Structure formats: C-alpha cells, structure tokens
C-alpha cells in the first residue's frame, strides 16, 4: 500500500484497473485507492506482468502492506514474487531496495533530498506523488518547487463510494442503520477530536459594520467577474492581518511555536458528505480579484470531488462561513495545528446608534475568532480581530 499523502496510515482498494496476467507498463494506472484525503489512481512503478492481486477491492490495508505483485517479463506469472520488482513500494521511481529506509509501520521512505523534504513540508507538497528528476530518481528541490507552482498532480479523483448501510434489529430507537465512515470522514473525526482534546480554545466575537463593504461590492460587480464575495473580503482582510500578526499565522507544536513565512488561508467548504478545507496559497500577496477567482475554482473542485491533496494542504489559517444559512455567529473547531479559525456569520441590516446617538440601519456582520491559547493570548487575538474589522470597515485597502 503506497503512502499517497503525508498523513496516510492506511488505504482502501476501491477498484483494480488491471487483472492478474495483464502486462503493465510503468506509469500505467493499476488501481484506485481511497486515502484519508482523497481517492487516487495509483500507477505502476515498473514494467511487468501482474502475477498476483493480493488485496481485493474494498480491502483496507496499512501503508507498506503488499497489494499486488508484478513479475518480470511478459507472461511470467510463475516467477518468484520475492525476486520480482516490488509493486508495494510507494516510491515509483526507485525500484532498487538499496537506500530505502523502511519505517516502523512497514512503509518505505520516499527518496528525496533533505532540502526537498524540508520544502515539501513547508509548502504542503506530497513527496510520494512526485517524480524525482535527480540522480537515481531522487526528488530534489526543483521538483518540489515545480509541484508547488503547479499546485496539482497527475492523480485523478473519484467521488467516494457510499458504503452499503448495515441495519440492526429495531429497538426503542426503531431500526438503526450503520454507515461505515469514508476515509475522509475518518480523518475529519480524528482531527476534530484531537483539536478539542489538545487545544485550550477561547472565542472572541466582533461585530463589523459592513456598509462600506456592501457599497464596494456593488461597484466591483460592475467591473469584476466573479465579483468578490464578502467571504473573499474576509479572507483578504484576514491575510493582511495575518502578515502583521505572525503568531496567528503559526502553530503550537511539540513545545515550540512554529511561525510560517507564507500566508495560506484555508476556506471550509462542505463537500460530498464531508468537510474539505482547500487552501488559497499566499492570499496576502494576491489581489482581492485573484482571491475570489481561486476561491471559486477551489469550491467548484470540492463540489465535483476533484480537489487534489496539494490543494488541501499547507494551510496556515482557516476561514469558515455559515452566513449563507442565516447563522448570526458561531464557534468552530480549530483545524490543528493552526493557531486559530475565523468564522463568519450572516450579513444583516440592523438598527445601530451612530456617533450622534441616532438610530440608523447598517449592514452588520459577526466575526468570531477561535484561538488556541497555547500560542495566542487574549490580547493577541483581540488585536488581530480588531485589525480584520478595521480592514473590512475601510474596505478600499482590500482592493489595493
């Protein structure tokens, strides 16, 4: 079972694309595999003949387990599988066992240079999916930079197959259906529980006067397609404030504060039966129009189940919006190990007192910042949130 994402511990064979006895070429898709992040097509890393499909469709195996054997030569199904190039290696470019470094869970190490490994971690690139251009197929710095630049991989995605619900006998609650979680749902489950169990969180709520932003958006509609949404404005305002407040753009991990050089804002999107948080990379340096375009494209991909692992990795902060459901304000679970998550409520006309005490109607919206108190203290969070509000109330600075 190849490691197809950094966090992958096991994978499910959704479908075999080859049969025993088939000749395969290196690079030919041989299986669809469901990981914790996405469904992917896995390609053969060597030429040969499929001598045995060890795992059946629907089987879930730990990373490093054998899923199939590919023998040498056409029709050579009888060859000793031990001598055949091993299909289970997650490093498609390195058929030689020499230099590999089996980890404790049975997975094998991807061959990458130290700088490539470091940068992949920083940029949210999955090493296992890259083709190394260095000596002996080593993944080098240039490969990681190219992958981060393209933001995509050759992997294809398919919607998760809904498991057939089991049923239990009727009790006081009536008939019970049991649904197996998809890998993605398992990941959400694990990470949300981990967040609540480890991050001592607190919330700050601020009411923002969006009247100027509403006017700006009306003007932008005339010139921009797509016109930036209020959520895009929040993402842009947050990214500017993140650049100024480094700890918010960081994480508490293993006794250290990690502060990131890039501002990558994740936007929570309801996907097919799961929550997906695609990333708008370098949101601080992108124009509001570009943020809007990126967000549109990512949301579309999530809805179609086409989002790739690099697109859901590397986030340094998250924005979650339930305003479209009419929710006034809400709390959210921090996306670990990020320092905070910002939630956006509905924009509503409300009576407020102006500076002279007169009641006027203004476009109001609530923002809630949920902070991990291990890295962000009350004043840090308040300072950040005040800056976001200031930017949204004078939204021309967002359009710069």
């Amino acid at each position, binding site marked *: 079972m190849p490691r197809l994402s950094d966090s992958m511990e096991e994978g499910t064979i959704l479908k075999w694309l080859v049969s025993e006895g088939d000749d395969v070429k290196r690079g030919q898709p041989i299986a669809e595999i469901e990981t914790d992040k996405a469904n992917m097509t896995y390609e053969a890393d060597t030429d040969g003949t499929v001598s045995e499909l060890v795992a059946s469709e629907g089987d879930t195996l730990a990373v490093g387990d054998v899923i199939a054997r590919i023998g040498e030569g056409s029709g050579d199904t009888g060859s000793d599988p031990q001598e055949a190039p091993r299909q289970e290696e997650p490093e498609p470019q390195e058929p030689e066992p020499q230099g590999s470094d089996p980890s404790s869970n049975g997975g094998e190490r991807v061959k990458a240079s130290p*700088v*490539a490994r*470091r940068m992949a971690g920083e940029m949210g690139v999955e090493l296992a999916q890259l083709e190394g251009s*260095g*000596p*002996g197929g*080593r993944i080098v*710095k240039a490969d990681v930079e190219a992958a981060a630049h393209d933001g995509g991989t050759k992997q294809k995605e398919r919607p998760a197959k809904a498991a057939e619900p089991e049923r239990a006998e009727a009790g006081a609650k009536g008939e019970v259906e049991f649904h197996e979680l998809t890998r993605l749902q398992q990941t959400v489950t694990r990470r949300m529980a981990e967040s609540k169990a480890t991050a001592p969180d607190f919330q700050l709520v601020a009411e923002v006067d969006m009247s100027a932003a509403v006017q700006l958006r009306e003007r932008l509609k005339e010139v921009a397609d797509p016109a930036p949404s209020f959520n895009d404005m929040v993402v842009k305002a947050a990214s500017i404030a993140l650049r100024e407040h480094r700890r918010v753009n960081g994480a508490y991990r293993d006794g250290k504060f990690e502060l990131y050089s890039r501002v990558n804002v994740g936007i929570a999107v309801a996907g097919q039966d799961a929550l997906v948080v695609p990333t708008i990379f370098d949101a601080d340096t992108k124009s509001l129009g570009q943020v809007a375009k990126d967000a549109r494209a990512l949301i579309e991909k999530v809805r179609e189940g086409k989002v790739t692992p690099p697109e859901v990795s590397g986030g340094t902060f998250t924005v979650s919006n339930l305003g479209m459901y009419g929710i006034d304000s809400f709390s959210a679970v921090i996306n670990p190990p990020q320092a905070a998550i910002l939630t956006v409520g509905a924009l509503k006309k409300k009576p407020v007192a102006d500076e002279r005490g007169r009641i006027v109607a203004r476009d109001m919206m609530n923002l809630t910042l949920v902070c991990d108190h291990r890295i962000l203290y009350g004043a840090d969070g308040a300072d950040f949130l005040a800056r976001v509000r200031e930017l949204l109330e004078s939204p021309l600075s967002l359009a710069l």
Partner: protein
Amino acid sequence: MPTMRYREALNEALREEMQEDESVFVMGEDVGVFQGAFKVTKGLLEEFGEKRVRDTPISENTIVGMGVGAAMVGLRPVVELMTVNFSLLAMDQIVNHAAAVGYMFGGQVSCPMVIRMPGGAGHQLGPTHSHSFEAWYLHVPGLLVAVPSTPADAKGLLKAAIRDDNPVVFIEHETLYGQKGEVPENGGPARFGEAAIRREGDDVTVVGISRMAITAEKAAETLASEHEIEAEVIDPRTLRPLDLDTIVESVKKTNRAVIVEEGWPHGGVGANLAALIQEQAFDWLDAPVMRVTGADVPMPYSKPLEQASFPHEEHVVQAALSTFRDV
C-alpha cells in the same frame, strides 16, 4: 599591481618580516648557501647573515625542536622542511611540543613559529616526496594550517603566520612556485580564517584546497560554458581556523557541495568538511556532499600513473554534474 611568482611572493614576505622584526630568523636544509631547494630563501643569507639564515644538517626533528625552543624563549623562527613528507620525521616536535606547549604550561609560554613545507604531486618525485598531508596537521589542535594557492595569499598569509603567536604549519604547493599572480604592493598580512570566493555562482559550491582551488576554478568555467551550471568556487586559504560560515552560506544558496583536494580520501580534509557541511546545512542539501580526492594509493613515480592519482578539471566537472543527474 605588480605581478610576481609564488616563490618570489614568499621570499618577499620573509624579507619584509625579517627587516621589520629582528627576532625573525630562517632555519632549514639548504636555505642559506643554496638559497633553498625551491629558491624561496634567495638572497636572504647575503642580506641578513649566517645568524639569521641558518643551514642545518639533515635532521628534521632536531630542526623543528630547535625552532620550538627558540620560539619559547621569544624568537620567531621560520623553519623550512624540504617536503611535507620529510615533516613526518619531525612529527613528535610538531604535535607533541609545538602544538601542545602553550597548553601544557597554562599559557606561560607560547610557540610563535612557522614550519614551511611544500607538498603535492606532479614532478615525478615518487611516494617519499609528493604527498598531500594537509589532513594530518588539520587534525591537531594547537596548530594553525595555511594552504595558499596564489602568490598574493602566499605573501599575505606567510606574513600573518610569522606575526601569529601560535605555531603555524604553512603548506606550499610544489607545482605552484613558478605560478605568477598579482600581489598588492606594500600589502600587509592576510587574515587567517577568511575564505576567498574565487568565482560566484548559484548552482553548486565547489571548495578547492590548495592547488585544487585553481583546478576547481577551471572546472567551473567548463561547467558554465558546456553545462550551463554556475559553480561558486571557494578557496578556504586556511584550514585551521576554517571559514566554515562562508562555505555553509554558499551551500545554503546552491544546495550542493563538492570538495576537491589532492590528499587521500579516508580521513581527509574533504571528509571532515563534508561532515561539517551536513551537520550545519543538512536541510539545505539537494544532493550528497561529493568529494574529489587523490587516489587511495602511495603516489606513483610513473608519469601517467602520477597524473592519474590526483584530481584534474574533468573529475571536478563530473562530480559537480553528479549532484544534478546520473552521470
């Protein structure tokens, strides 16, 4: 800027320092009447007389031992050994005495002496005259080690070595004595522990020791013209103290390092430097640190074999390319 040969630059450094400081004197085999096996001490006997330019018997351990004693009582001896190979006869005085004496007596005495010796192959002098033992002296705490590759560095570093209160092993290169280069007029002493960036580049760092700095520079031109690879060539100039900062800084930029030396591979200067680079720049490396070294054999006498036993430009080019792709 005047141009002079490497041996003339060394001669000028000796003459200037002897004029400057009466406690400086020269001692060694054939340094007086014969004016040095490589003519580095030319004219010194005539100018400074027998007391300050002393011919000695063939007895390396004794020559260095006398130097250690003279240095301990306040003189500044410059001892010449005819080759680095012969210096092994004086290992006891160099390692157990010159390097250690300041530590043994808690700094009450120092040993401000220079031990000059040429090393390196190329003149068909066989295994007893042609080795490169930089690593042997680099190994010893208490010694400073200089390996100049240009006439300017030869002069500047020798002046600095004579003025330094530590014992300095000053390793010249036999095939460089006739090399010409610009030397600053009235130039002062150079600084130990300051590497020279001979050529700037963004793609691969090539560190050349002694003559190999020149070989590395030639290889860098080939890498640029034939392979579109811009190498940064660094000449450390002194191995102890070592300007590791400049090397690590460069590796952080290029993500690749190649070290070129004439000495043997095992326990060599390159082995040591490779260890330091991976300790300090591991997360910046895009390829293993490569070494280009002399062959792991006693230096052959036969000309073709001798030529095959130390690195040439093409070896450096190959090693640099191997950090980019399969070669």
